């Protein structure tokens, strides 16, 4: 079920156009009180941003995903579980003072680029253990390179996850107590990197929830770019717990158009080690793996992004056609027609059935 890239882009363009019309309507139409107006405009704007991000992702060639999170939430464990090999340094104390980029390669390679001398060192490793040692040496707080700091660390590994072209960046953790100069350093690194990320996966720990500190972190670094929340340590969460978790924080923090994945990094990793596929499935790592892996492929990516687009449209309309907000969408009809026309050839799967995007949009927004 291929999705024509051009059609998808055109549809997204039309949806954005419709939103512009909506914004104008909410701005000028009388009959809304100030609170509703503000709320509606916020939602429409956030929706537009998130759809625009999808558009960017459709167009990009190299798909770079950043994994971010506060210190020791279990980010590296998830990455290792995703890669299937332990190459992300994992220790029970703050780590990774640098971004480490993981790319696909049939050999275990590590490339270090230095900041001041523009020197590049490439090293061939004998296997994952050797590579991990190298990464730990360079990319941890223990590796001290103050005289000539490292600009970037790139790693090539033969991991299925990356085989379709995906690039993953492991970022430094935040919030743990470290020596003062390091904390600053971490922020600088993240600020330097985030504009390059096509998507940000924000990892939080279920046991910790989202604390005031995490919220601050989200607002400062992630708000404009992050669409994916990965909640780890979820081994004991039931389905309704997950739903509760989502609504609790959504309501409290206003995390709109955020896709939530509940995983258990630890369980996924031990399943990898033991080769227990059922466990791997249950840990949630599998679906996250497939999702990420397909994003690396230019063709398959479009189907995933189309699905995300539909999800967002669902969420978007849910904010409007409910009693709480009391706002009914009135789409500018000419643009709506154009949108439907652009989407006529796009189909997606929903609940096992094939749905035409044009029909969907017609139903959803008419």
């Amino acid at each position, binding site marked *: 079920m291929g999705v024509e890239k051009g059609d998808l882009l055109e549809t997204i363009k039309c949806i954005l156009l419709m939103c512009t019309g909506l914004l104008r309507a909410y701005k000028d139409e009388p009959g809304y009180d100030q609170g509703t107006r503000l709320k509606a405009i916020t939602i429409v704007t956030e929706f537009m941003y998130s759809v625009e991000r999808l558009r960017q992702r459709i167009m990009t060639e190299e798909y770079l995903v950043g994994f971010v999170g506060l210190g020791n939430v279990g980010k590296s464990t998830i990455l290792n579980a995703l890669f299937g090999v332990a190459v992300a340094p994992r220790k*029970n104390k703050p780590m990774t003072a640098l971004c480490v980029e993981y790319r696909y390669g049939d050999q275990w390679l590590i490339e270090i680029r230095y900041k001041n001398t523009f020197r590049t060192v490439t090293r061939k490793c004998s296997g994952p253990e050797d590579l991990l040692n190298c990464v730990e040496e360079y990319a941890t707080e223990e590796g001290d390179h103050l005289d000539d700091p490292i600009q970037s660390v790139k790693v090539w590994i033969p991991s299925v996850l990356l085989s379709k072209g995906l690039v993953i960046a492991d970022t430094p953790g935040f919030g743990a*107590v470290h020596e003062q100069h390091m904390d600053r350093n971490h922020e600088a690194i993240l600020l330097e990197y985030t504009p390059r990320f096509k998507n940000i996966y924000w990892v939080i720990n279920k046991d910790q929830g989202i604390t005031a500190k995490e919220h601050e972190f989200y607002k400062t670094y992630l708000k404009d770019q992050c669409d994916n929340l990965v909640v780890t*340590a979820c081994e004991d969460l039931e389905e309704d717990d997950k739903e509760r978790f989502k609504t609790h924080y959504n309501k409290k923090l206003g995390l709109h158009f955020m896709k939530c994945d509940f995983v258990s990094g630890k369980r996924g990793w031990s399943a990898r080690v033991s080769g227990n596929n059922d466990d791997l499935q249950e840990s949630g790592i599998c679906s996250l793996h497939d999702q990420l892996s397909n994003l690396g492929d230019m063709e398959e990516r479009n189907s995933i992004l189309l699905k995300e687009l539909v999800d967002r449209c669902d969420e978007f309309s849910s904010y409007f056609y409910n009693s709480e907000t009391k706002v009914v969408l009135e789409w500018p009809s000419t643009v709506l027609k154009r949108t439907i026309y652009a989407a006529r050839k796009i189909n997606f799967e929903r609940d096992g059935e094939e749905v035409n995007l044009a029909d969907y949009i017609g139903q959803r927004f008419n």
Partner: protein
Amino acid sequence: MHIIQPLIQDIVTWAEEVKDISRQMDNNEAANSIQQEIDALKTGKFMLAVMGKVKRGKSTFCNAFLGRTDNIVAPIDKLPASSVVTKFIYDENEKVVVYYRDGHQEVVGYNQIAKFVTESGNPENKLEVDSVEVYGPFGGLDQQLVLVDTPGAGSIHKHHDAILHGFIPKADAVIFLVTANMPLAADEVELLKELKSHDIQKIFFAINKVDDCEEQDINDGIEHNLKILAEAGISVSNIHRISAKNALNGNSSISGVPEMLDCITSFLNENQIKIIRSRFISKVSRIVEGLATNVAIQIESDSKSVQELEAEQIALSKRKEEINSDRGHAEKEFTFKWRSAIEDLKRVLPGCQRKLKEVVSAHIHATGVLQVDALRKSLPTFIANTRDEVLSKPFQDFEEQARKATEKLRAEYPAVSMSQDGSLTLRSGGKHENLLVTGSLGGAVAAATGMATVAAASGMTASIAAANAAAIAATAAAAHAAAGVAAFNTVAGLGATVVGTVLTGPLGAALGMAGTGLMGAAPTVAAPVLATAPAWLALAGPIGWTLAGAGVLIVPFAYRSSKLKQKDQLETESIKFIDGFFEIVFGEHIKHLSELSERIVTEFSLQLDNELIQIEKSLQKSILRKEELRGIDDLVNLSSRLCIVKDYMSKTH
């Protein structure tokens, strides 16, 4: 209570003394909080609070501590749960008391606890619960020991933090929970530092959820935590490794919780009374510190103000004497100088008169027969110019002397300024600008001054014009206005005079203008005035305010001279005019200048009287204020009592 009574009697007596002192200081707030502390102390309860960051298993631990295998008394959730402070108190009967913020309370059953203490049951604490007390025959507790569950720190629910921080001062000892998989974070260190700042000496440190982690991770975590704690200056003797979850699930033997409880119990058995006493002393000492600081500040500010008031009184009295002794002399000197200036002027004026007549006569004689017509037209201007030439020097000299005399008087004048509320400010010496000048030159006053100047000048002009039989209703009205202004603000009027002395040139022009306006309104001389108007302006220029208005005298002359045909007639008329002019200068101007000195002296004198009254008032006021501050002895007394109280405690403990 009877067990603890003898052990605390000494510190209760001590605290009662502090309470007594704070009552005497009218500090009921402090007295009440001391009473509260005493009441709390007498109950003999020991508050052992469980604290930590959000989602660290505090409520799970409480359940385990209390020997429960369910989470009814301390509800647990996968989302942040506890939103209020819950106290677990030993009692044979199960009972829950909910205390609301507005003071009322409610007794509920165990099954309703979750409705009040959890975020899901009571979101944002909309029920306004202050705290919940859960009574029951709990295993880990005894009659004295109270276990307290608190909301987690650093949650996105801001009110949780507020509740937690509000409780910290009430805690006697703390069980601090962290988790194995999360190393100590910056905000946890903050919380620990706050505990330390509240003199909480005993912190039981436990690393929870060890069942979730591998041995290596726990060891790394503990190593990291100890390092961070040492950096923060918090000493921890032992980090307990526990799994509250295991204990709750009935696997207490591998949970590490019983060992920790043993440790806590044995510590408390040994130190409970000691900690209760030292916590009580610490809390009351804080109040003592506050009281002592207050007293010290008050004593300092009061004694300072007494000193200031005394200094002010001395300065005021001194000033009063100075004014009284100096004023007579200053006034005499001024009057003398002013008079001698007038005498000087009077002496030279006849000579001027003579010289003017000679020059005018010579000019007329030198004129050819055929030029009489032209002479007739130019004569008023010629006379005016010549008069200016002759008179400007002596009048300028006079103005200079008058200015100096006035300035001298001003310098003698006391530099006292009044503020809105009538209090006085003394300025050292008498060299500063005085009230007259500030009053007349300052800001918007300048405009008013200008008005008054013009009006005063108009007054003079009016009197001269009246003597000339050309007075009309308009002039009278102007004179009226002048009188009105003078009455309204005599100081400003005087000020105008002073300004006049300084700003002779432009002011003279203004005076001339005023004269022109006035005369223009007079019907009898309408035509010639218009024709020769520029001459008056020129005439008024070089001569100062002393001769203001004199220029207009030329008008009737110009009118008359324009009718004359013969040279000798013109000469006679000119001489007559000049004589008449000088008669007026002597009769009106000189007289006016003499009167002016009297007015200036009167004004100054009145002003001085006014200042003296104000000084007297201020003196009275400062004497009264000093009376009020007499209470300083009492303060010193209280302060020394506080010192004794402080010393007593620091010596005994």
